[in-house]
């Protein structure tokens, strides 16, 4: 098992788990889990557009996550 720190932004906060506070908190994953698995674990459907930023780097959907990674899950909102 590994634990990553997740921060959900704006409307994606609705996918927060009970262990999270204000869309932010830890999430436990299997050792072989990727960013895609993280989305599945949060129950974010594949049709929901979002961008992942892992440790301040934009990440693809198949990045293998490490224990302690900081993962931001962002909706496609980019100001005006």
């Amino acid at each position, binding site marked *: 098992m590994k634990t990553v720190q997740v921060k959900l932004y704006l409307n994606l906060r609705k996918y927060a788990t009970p262990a999270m506070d204000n869309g932010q908190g830890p999430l436990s994953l299997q050792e072989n889990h990727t960013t895609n698995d993280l989305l599945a674990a949060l129950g974010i459907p594949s049709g929901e*557009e979002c961008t992942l930023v892992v440790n*301040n780097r934009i990440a693809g959907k198949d990045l293998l996550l490490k224990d302690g990674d900081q993962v931001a899950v962002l909706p496609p909102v*980019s*100001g005006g």
Partner: protein
Amino acid sequence: MTFSLRGKLLDIDLTAGKAREITIPEADYRAFLGGSGVAAKWFYDTGKMQLSPLDPEAPLFVMTGLLTGVNVPTACKASFCGRSPATGIWSESTVGGRWPSALRSCGYDGMIITGCSAEPVYLYLREDKVELREAGHLWGKDVYATQEAIREEVEDENLRAAAIGPAGEKQVLIAGIIIDGHDARAAGRGGMGAVMGSKRLKAIAVSKGKKTPKPYDPDALDRARREAVPRIREKTRGLTDYGTAGGVPVVEKLGDLPIRNWTGGSWTEGAARTSGQAIMESAGVGHYACYRCPIRCGKEVQVTKGPHAGTEAHGPEYETAAGFGACLLNDDLHTIVAANDLCNRLGLDTMSTASVIALAMELYEHGLLKAEDAAGLELNWGNGEAILSLVEQIGNREGIGEILSRGVRRAVAHFGPPAAEFAVETKGLEYAFHDPRAFTSMALVYATGNRGACHLEGLTYFSENRAFPPELMGLEPEYEPHGYQGKPLLAKTMQDYMGTFNALGLCKFLIRGHVTPAEVSDWVKACTGWTMDAQELLTAGERIFNLKRLINTGLGISRKDDMLPPRLFAHDRVEGAAGGSLPHLGKMLWEYYRLRGWSPEGIPTAERLEQLGLPSR
């Protein structure tokens, strides 16, 4: 078949104090759609492009869009077009709110204003009537007070005005035109407020009439609108709740925020403190929608700082929140709110004003500008008192504001080396606050933008970030954010599409509601009775884009000007999600010019111009 959307155009000579009505041929509407498209066509045909922008004879085009006022989602815009005194090239500054549809309801599609009045005047329009009225008593008043005074004078409490404030009167080169008084929507960019000021034209006031154009096929339009509006509402809920500034924390995380005059990589806490959510929680009092808009991104807020503390005002949008926030390292949202309100009252472009203040703060940091040069102000990053004071000095051209009021390019020329290192502008226009190092297609959009460093001419960060999925335009679905593959086609395609919006009078946030060219062309068909498919619409956009380029190449623009400033081109950030990224501009330009049918020097070729039905000079 009748083309029922056409109104009259007013040709106004302020020197002679005369107006006459003219009619735009339907062929011009078909080829250039309306709004800034038709304005570009008429500007090109006047042959007056070479006149200095502040020459009395230089024309100012005020044009509503083809669909403005008709019951089409967000059909609310008008554009102020001509040659910019800030950049010296083509400029169009577009605004929504309620004034444009009121103008159209009087039976006018717009006006061409030339000449200069001997004394200050304002134009007063009613249905089929135009009057020039004395405005000596309004000169010096701020934008809000101007509309109020005209309302009382003509006894119409619903009157709407497009007005300049003291900044435009004093020909501040970053002055805008603000409409709807206290509701304050801004045609900010390019210094068009200075053009109005140079003509001694304080305002264009309009009492609503009953001549709003009728669509050709109301039933078809009704069906199309019913299909579109629920989807638009659903996809833009974030804009409705928090306004465009709701995006501040998201773009910060993507490395897209212009932190500390574009040098900082991360500012997470500051972004949270200056977000649309924070603004609405601690200062919000309500929501605001432009005419016919189902999105309602406008916000109303309480001002708690500065000379107008205690009043209510239009809330800061993303660009203003990012400019007066992250760019100045100011995390006090109340200062942002007050700066926004001051800019609106004085008639200043918030984006250029924040940019030139960022320049001043960086000059101060490096000892090139001292407190004694700025009336004793310590221009430290984030100093809210200094920010508000500089806004007033710029708007009134007082003290250091005299130099800063000329915009970044001219201010840099004043301060000398190495000030150019801190300058963030292209073709003389200060940048919008989305970083081309974070979404590299934006490097092309900024470098080739017809009015200078404009984000709105392409908005490709929406595509790259999938707020407007690129496959809706028949493009590749995914792009490497910091790469360059596929980006020239993305930039060109989106520029062609976005070029139709200012011509049609539509708000570009429609793309956040996934509105496609096929859908827009259906609206145009239902409104006009023309045959028009998505491809024809995009070709019109391409024609409009090329015509503006033709105006600019006539003014000396070529590849040498399609550049990024050194800070965005060669100075990568050390941290944040865009850390280490620099756009491959040169590589992308080759492909971009090829797709455009332009020479390697960035000049439209005779063949492409002919294909588009444009003159080959």
